[in-house]
């Protein structure tokens, strides 16, 4: 019996049967058949449904004449992300704002949910930041192909055609290393924050862990910002026009 959070227990109680059948269809046997849904997936689903509810709520309350508080908040977030993409990518970068804003909300909420007792950060297991990094990777490669067609592959050849046999493996490895570095940066920051708080909690149970929890909250915000900033920089590399 694995250690389960209360929310994971509810999900496993309700959905263990269908999830097991789904996994068997792919010939995967879960380690604990009565609890196939791990904590990280349960927390991710919670964040997903909360964000879906929040976005639908804001969408239903949008108005031009009398914007409410939530509309102001979302306009501020959209302004931040759009200003940053305009600064980094340049013109015509409004199309990238939805993906970047969703990524920012998802990663921020996944990071911060671990602070609440009874919940756990899904980004503290390596697979969740890998998912976010793969989404960002597929997105910017797709935008590169959409912008330049098949000519996007020229980006991998380097500055001169004579250098192409040397540059192509280097560029491929560096693009894959971007996925690795995005994943490990987010995972290691969240995991280290948890570990450090736990270690100091085992040393001095009163007062000192609050400082590290505060640091963890600050690091969560910073790492979300860095993830979105780096995705914007990779987008700029993919869709930049070289005149």
């Amino acid at each position, binding site marked *: 019996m694995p250690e389960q959070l209360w929310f994971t227990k509810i999900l496993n109680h309700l959905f263990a049967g269908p999830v097991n059948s789904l996994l068997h269809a792919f010939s995967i046997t879960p380690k604990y058949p009565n609890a196939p849904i791990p904590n990280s997936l349960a927390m991710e689903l919670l964040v997903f449904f909360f964000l879906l509810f929040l976005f639908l709520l804001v969408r239903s309350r949008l108005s031009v004449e009398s914007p409410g508080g939530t509309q102001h908040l979302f306009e501020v977030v959209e302004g931040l992300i759009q200003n940053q993409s305009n600064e980094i990518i340049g013109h015509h970068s409004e199309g990238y704002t939805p993906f970047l804003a969703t990524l920012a909300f998802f990663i921020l909420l996944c990071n911060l949910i671990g602070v609440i007792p009874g919940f756990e950060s899904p980004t503290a297991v390596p697979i969740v930041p890998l998912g976010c990094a793969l989404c960002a990777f597929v997105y910017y490669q797709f935008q590169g192909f959409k912008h330049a067609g098949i000519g996007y592959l020229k980006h991998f050849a380097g500055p001169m055609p004579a250098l192409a046999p040397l540059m192509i493996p280097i560029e491929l490895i560096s693009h894959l290393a971007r996925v690795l570095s995005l994943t490990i*940066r987010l995972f*290691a*920051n969240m995991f*280290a924050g948890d570990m450090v708080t736990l270690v100091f909690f085992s040393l001095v149970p009163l007062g000192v862990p609050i400082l590290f929890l505060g640091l963890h909250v600050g690091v969560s915000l910073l*790492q979300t*910002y*860095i993830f979105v*900033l780096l995705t914007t920089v990779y987008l700029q590399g993919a869709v930049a026009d070289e005149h």
Partner: protein
Amino acid sequence: MRLLSKLFMALSVLSFAVPAFAQGGTPSEVNWVAISAGFSMAFASGICALAQGKATAAAAEGLARNPAARPGIQLALILGLALIESLALYTLVIIFAKVK
């Protein structure tokens, strides 16, 4: 020259400890992975701190010379610090993956 002679003197004093290898008894399992993990993490954190200090000093000086360029300098500083930090964190991840 005097530094070199002091260095050699210190190294030769360390060789006085060699008879410790002559002690008998059952060989205990030394966890080399944990020892090298400690050293490597200290090394990584120290060099990361040096690099971040250099980046912060350059950003502070740039900001002092041209306060109007604050957005650009702030962006470069935050990006640079996060990238340097992530290099030290790669060492931590290896430690958590390999040390039992």
